[in-house]
């Protein structure tokens, strides 16, 4: 369970770094090269690399289905992160969608 929690936190952190870098380089012609050279992207991929092993460790403890259900909370958390870091609008339907996802996760464990 600890590995799954760690996987979720590191995933979100790395995605925020990637999105920040993509916003910075969005208009550049050599987008991929600039992205690869960006320190944020290097850190994000470093996190992703570590996450590969965290994910393997997590999967050696829990089933694939349980692991996927637990990590589905990232979809809900990402809406909040998106609003905080990238000022993305959060409307009723985003909350509704997040509610559906939460309910889906709960139903699986009833």
């Amino acid at each position, binding site marked *: 369970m600890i590995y799954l929690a760690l996987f979720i936190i590191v995933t979100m952190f790395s995605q925020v770094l990637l999105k920040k870098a993509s916003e910075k380089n969005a208009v550049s012609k050599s987008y991929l090269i600039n992205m690869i050279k960006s320190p944020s992207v290097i850190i994000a991929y470093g996190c992703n690399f570590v996450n590969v092993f965290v994910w393997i460790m997590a999967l050696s403890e829990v089933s694939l289905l349980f692991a996927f259900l637990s990590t589905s909370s990232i979809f809900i958390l990402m809406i909040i992160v998106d609003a905080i870091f990238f000022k993305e609008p959060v409307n009723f339907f985003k909350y*509704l*969608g997040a509610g559906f996802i939460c309910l889906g996760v709960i*139903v699986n464990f009833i």
Partner: protein
Amino acid sequence: MLNSYILLILVVITNFISQILFENLSQQIKVEVWSLLNLYTVLSSLVTTFYFWCALISFCLSSILWIFAIRRIALSIAFSMMSLNYVLIIAYTFFFLNEYISINQLISCTLIIAGVLIISNNQILTKYFKSK
């Protein structure tokens, strides 16, 4: 924008392949207590396997495609698309591993997909209901 969605589908497929390969690898390693010493032992045995490199290449490809996909799409929407991976896993376990899938899991899966569709189309839905 359409290209970004095509890229996202490719991300989902490559990510799904890597998850299946990593799952196969995880079946091979059963470690009671994780420590730096046995972590090194596990890692050194992993890097010699073909599956590990296929999984890692697939994972890297997925990551590269992802940075192109999130260029124009909000993270929350792009991430909700990634739940198609979950559906692929369910389908894989059912069709290829002949695993039993409960009604609850099917309902759960349906609810999650519905949620993702709502999040993905939140702007269209908002405009539609405002015009009513």
